[in-house]
């Protein structure tokens, strides 16, 4: 059933009794052509594009919990493509283009809201970095502009642009096409669309072992039994190392807690996204009215989906520094996710030493924006056993050769 205003009305008449399932809950089959491990946005998108673009319909997504319950369901939903390095910029820009028609493509409103993202600069070096990034973005065909402090004051009147604040705001970069999306809807929309194309979405199915025959993959063990497959794509974010060790390979990945919190819902007060690296905080207001705020990453490794309270305190201080008017607003809920961080803060979308086994991880604190693009290139990589041009640089080999894509360096803000 196609979703539309009309279908809403029609179903209202029958007391909403006739809505079909958004996705089935099938029993796992014995064997699939391809398995995608991890039912986050990336995994579901991978399955969707495998089915849609590569004719691989005998695919299952295996999710240990409930789809979208990982980082997809706990991130601050910032979507932008203004990355510094060309390799990253083109990948994220591909994703941005997919975002732009995603609701229609999936027939599921993911509420992608292109309200603009500002990256603030507080030091002269921040401003140099901003200039460098904006300059690179424009040459890469990505919309970007440098905004002065005066313009900022006008565009975001609530922002503390006082020249006497501890870290005065000197300017910002702005990507107008950037914005936010409704995180849960992204997972659900991809799931529903993939299901339509025949993909089995299997929840409560934890992969407990990866079976290989010499150098090749043959299948996986799960809490719901063994499943055979010729190809297995692993997209499990914070759990990448756990899965890698099942397959007997090592990844340069560390899992860390990353926290976020929301305020109580407020009337519209902030109609764009503001991120700051020096005063570490990033903030937007959701359509429901909460301020959605990201905190810093906790330094230690952690798989607990929670972090330290001082990290939250710092984020609060940063937000009040940027927006003193929010001091009296109250936090409604805080939570954490498990982010998978690679040494160069860039993803790994790669073949592995095991034939037929592919990994997609290392998105760290910033992979939500890449969800469609990541699925799209990963599907290509799995289907063709060969990376797409867009993800060729994001292989495992780079750690050996030293060809890191160091977004830490200058792009700085990683979300």
């Amino acid at each position, binding site marked *: 059933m196609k979703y539309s205003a009309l279908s809403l009305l029609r179903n209202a008449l029958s007391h909403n009794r006739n809505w079909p399932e958004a996705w089935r809950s099938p029993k796992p089959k014995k064997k699939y052509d391809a398995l995608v491990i991890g039912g986050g946005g990336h995994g579901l998108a991978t399955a969707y594009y495998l089915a849609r673009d590569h004719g691989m319909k005998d695919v299952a997504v295996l999710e240990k919990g409930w789809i979208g319950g990982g980082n997809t369901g706990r991130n601050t939903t910032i979507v932008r493509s203004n990355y510094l390095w060309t390799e990253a910029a083109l990948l994220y820009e591909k994703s941005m283009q997919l975002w732009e028609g995603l609701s229609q493509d999936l027939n599921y409103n993911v509420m992608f809201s292109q309200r603009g993202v500002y990256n603030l600069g507080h030091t002269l070096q921040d401003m140099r970095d901003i200039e460098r990034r904006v300059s690179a973005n424009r040459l*890469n065909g990505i919309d970007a502009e440098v905004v002065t402090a005066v313009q900022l004051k006008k565009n975001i009147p609530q922002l503390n642009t006082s020249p006497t604040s501890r870290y005065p705001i000197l300017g910002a970069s702005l990507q107008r096409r950037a914005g936010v999306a409704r995180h849960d809807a992204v997972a659900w929309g991809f799931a529903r669309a993939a299901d339509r194309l025949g993909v089995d979405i299997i929840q409560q199915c934890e992969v407990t072992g990866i079976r290989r025959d010499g150098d090749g993959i043959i299948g996986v063990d799960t809490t719901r039994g063994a499943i055979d497959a010729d190809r297995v794509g692993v997209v499990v974010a914070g759990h990448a190392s756990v899965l890698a060790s099942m397959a007997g390979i090592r990844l340069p990945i560390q899992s860390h807690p990353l926290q976020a919190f929301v305020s109580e819902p407020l009337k519209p007060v902030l109609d764009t996204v503001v991120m700051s690296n020096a005063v570490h905080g990033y903030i937007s207001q959701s359509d429901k009215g909460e301020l959605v705020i990201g905190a810093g990453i906790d330094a230690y490794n952690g798989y607990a989906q929670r972090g330290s309270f001082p990290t939250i305190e710092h984020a609060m201080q940063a937000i009040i520094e940027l927006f003193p008017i929010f001091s009296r607003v109250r936090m409604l809920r805080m939570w954490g996710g498990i982010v998978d961080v690679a040494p160069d803060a860039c993803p790994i979308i790669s073949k592995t030493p095991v034939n037929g086994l592919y990994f997609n991880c290392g998105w760290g604190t910033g992979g939500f924006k890449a969800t469609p693009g990541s699925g799209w290139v990963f599907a290509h990589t799995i289907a063709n056993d060969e990376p797409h041009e867009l993800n060729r640089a994001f292989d495992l080999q780079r750690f050996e*050769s030293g060809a890191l894509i160091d977004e830490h360096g200058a792009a700085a803000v990683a979300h």
Partner: protein
Amino acid sequence: MARQTNRLGSGGRIDRSRPLRFRFNGRDYGGYEGDTLASALLANGVRLVNRSFKLHRPRGIIGCGAEEPNAILQLGSGAGTLPNQRATQVSLYDGLEARSTRGWPSLRFDASSVNDLFGRVFSAGFYYKTFMFPQRWWDYYEAFIRRSAGLGVAPDRPDPDRYEHRNAHCDVLVVGAGPAGLMAALAAARSGARVILADQQREPGGSLVGSDLPIGGRPADEWIAAVVDELREFDDVRVLTHSIVFGYHDHNFVTIAQECGGDMRERLWRVRARQVVLAQGAFERPLAFCNNDRPGVMLASAVSAYIKRYAVCPGRRAVVFTNNDSAYQCALDLAHAGATVGALVDSRGSVSSELTDRVEAVGIPVLHGHIVTDVRGRLSVGGVRVARWNGDTDARADNSIDIRCDLLAVSGGWNPAVHLHSQAGGAIAWDERRHCFVPAESRQANRSAGSGNGRWSLADCLRDGRDAGVAAARSCGFDAAEPELPVVEERDETPLQPLWRVPAARDPDSCPKQFLDFQNDTCVADVRLAVREGYRNVEHVKRYTALGFGTDQGKLGNITGMAVLAETLGAPVASVGTTTFRPPFTPVSFGVCAGEGVGELYDPVRKTAIHEWHVSAGAAFENVGQWHRPWYFPRAGEDLNSAVARECLATRRSIGILDASTLGKIDVQGRDAVAFLERIYPHKVGRMAVGRCAYGLMLGEDGMVMDDGVMTRLGDRRYYLTTTTGGAARVLAWLESWLQTEWPDLEVYLTSLTDQLSTISVAGPNSRRLLEKLGCSIDLSREQFPFMSMRQADLAGLPVQLFRVSFSGELAFEINVDSAHALALWQTLMDAGREFEITPYGTETMHVLRAEKGFVIVGQDTDGSVTPIDLGLERMLAKDKDFLGKRSLARPDCVREGRKQLVGLLSADGRTVLREGAQLIEEPGAAHPVPMIGHVTSSYMSDCLGHPIALALVAGGRSRHGETIHASLGAGSIATVTIVPPVFYDPQNERQHD
């Protein structure tokens, strides 16, 4: 002003001698000290307090504490306004102003209440199914969605109040000062333990406040007061009221938000407790029947609390609807308060006769085996429909009768407040007998007690609390005795009948709405729809229907919702489970979490010993790390450019003076100092003669330039290193980590002297003359004190270290002096330098001077992906030793052709100052993505040379000197530039060697 029509003539914990005035939605009302905003509103007969989120249904006060979903109001105005305040938890004060956040044009006549008519269209997930066509309309749709969402409004000015943090440690933290908590605290306190007892209410006592139950032979209030008095006698006991324990974090770290009053609005207690007793009590739960959200439908325990604590009877004709014993007390309280209780409707077929008799004795008809199926009235309860029921949830209710009433008190049973237990990682279990989730195994040092632990009777709560207090104190090593338990009346209990969704006259999908989450308008039908559509996991249901998403975080309706979900799935509640309990227990202000660390205390401003001089000289400052450094020293009428031009020229022509004290400074001493530094630095450290200086690069193990500075050999076994300002702490920690973790056998000691020594740099052709003039104990001549060497000396009567190093390319001296004397020395230099027109300069001039010489700034001309070879410093890399990062330089990517290398750039037109950060391209006008071959890292107008200069990293740059490329200048314009070597000024280095 309205009369307090619902205020009882006597009783309550209010102070009638202190009347208060307040305003709600523009009307004036009166209340008393001791009221909450909610009790005062109810006292004044105010029913309608808000509209719901989605359907704009009229809503009234339903609870009396943290569970309240409806009475969410805006308080005050201007800078002091507070959004989303829960009226049940706001203490009334004189002059309080409150507004409903929804309802337009008015609360009574809300235009958007048409949404209610189309309620079925606004079913769970409707957003996701529409607003997609046409695509470009989304912006309008979204603006509309946003406008109709949200509750309160944020202040539009900075916060006038203050907040503070307070760390505390204790043996036993007791959360909740109800009977259980009080007994726990008492037991622990008597053992000698350090105790903190925290309760969110204005006074201790929990649900006993205002109660007339006898405890230990006296009224509850007296018993509470006696216990609290005793507790306050102990030095090591702290009783905190108005204090919400909102977070239970790892390792028994607990956060409490205390309301203070005065300009210190709130305090955050950061408590590290050895043991925690959770005596949070329980939340009464509602039942889901049709139109159960009408103003005037309230929790039974809340009705009792309003009567007893606040002397407010919220209705005149009441009906009580329950599935358990506890609401019988409410019926009695209502009758006692003079209300007519039309009926006590009990879903259970039979109940202990003692209980029934007591209610019937005051003239209340008791209807066993009955349920309330529907509520009449719109802006307020007008009556209820009651039907006989046999316990079958799937049956349709029939044989209904209507009972007129203006108040419906409901009890669906109790949910222990397992929030903090669960936040602490504790397991919860579904109790099949009591039909609620109770705390199971704890994962931290905590235990639960009282009704928060599933104990309902007062006697059980007291005992459970005492036992928990004793056990907690004993776990901390205290020899705790068991305090005697006060005697209380005990009664037989008839078990609760599990009832969640009340059968209606029609099936649950088409009957009038049965609300679960009042704030988000989530109904039974929504949960059923979610399941039908495949959103079956409790977490999916939460996210799809917004159940528990509101500002009460599901305290009211969540468990009922989970039970309805279980029923829909045909699964036991235990297997459905709950959603995750997360901090904060109730919302806490950003301000209190941030504490004092805002404004000027947001981050320390580090200041050099000479800072105040710079301030009085009118310097403009730049943030470098945490330091404030002079950026330039403008004279009247000067801007950055003109000031810098003047400072540069003065330095090149005579003398400039720079406060370089922020450089990191490290003393390295020990038997193995040479061996250690050889492993760190790429150059041959051991070859340096004592008294000589060398430029040193520090690489990460990845081979990339990490920091740089000058190292000086002070002795056989002693070196002195400088680091970049931003890198100081990092470098010291990095060196220390190598010593401690990797090479513990090396005997080397590192001491930071960054603060001890201030560094004044005097640069320019007259600098030597200046020092000589001041009186210097050593010969400063080129021969006796050559470039790149160091001497101890007395200068102007002060012991100093003099370094002949230059970051400007001029003859220059860096003077290290004890920070205690730095300001004096600086002033002395300024005085003596007047004849040379000595000119103080800031970081900007420093950058220009060094760029003219092609010296890099780590972090500006490098970015973590630059090797020494890229910088043209290959000669510094010793071939015959290992050093950190060396191996990485041999990796394929580090030796490949075409790496970006440091070069200089000259604008072809001789005028254009390139933008720092500008990307460099070969072919202007090429199609996107345009290949980029590098970027401008530094760029300045060089007034000394008379043209702009720039440094850049360019692919293969060193072999491209003389070639022409292009720099993008933003907004599409392009500058043509020529690649040149990176040294623009005095390439023979004659001046600095002078």
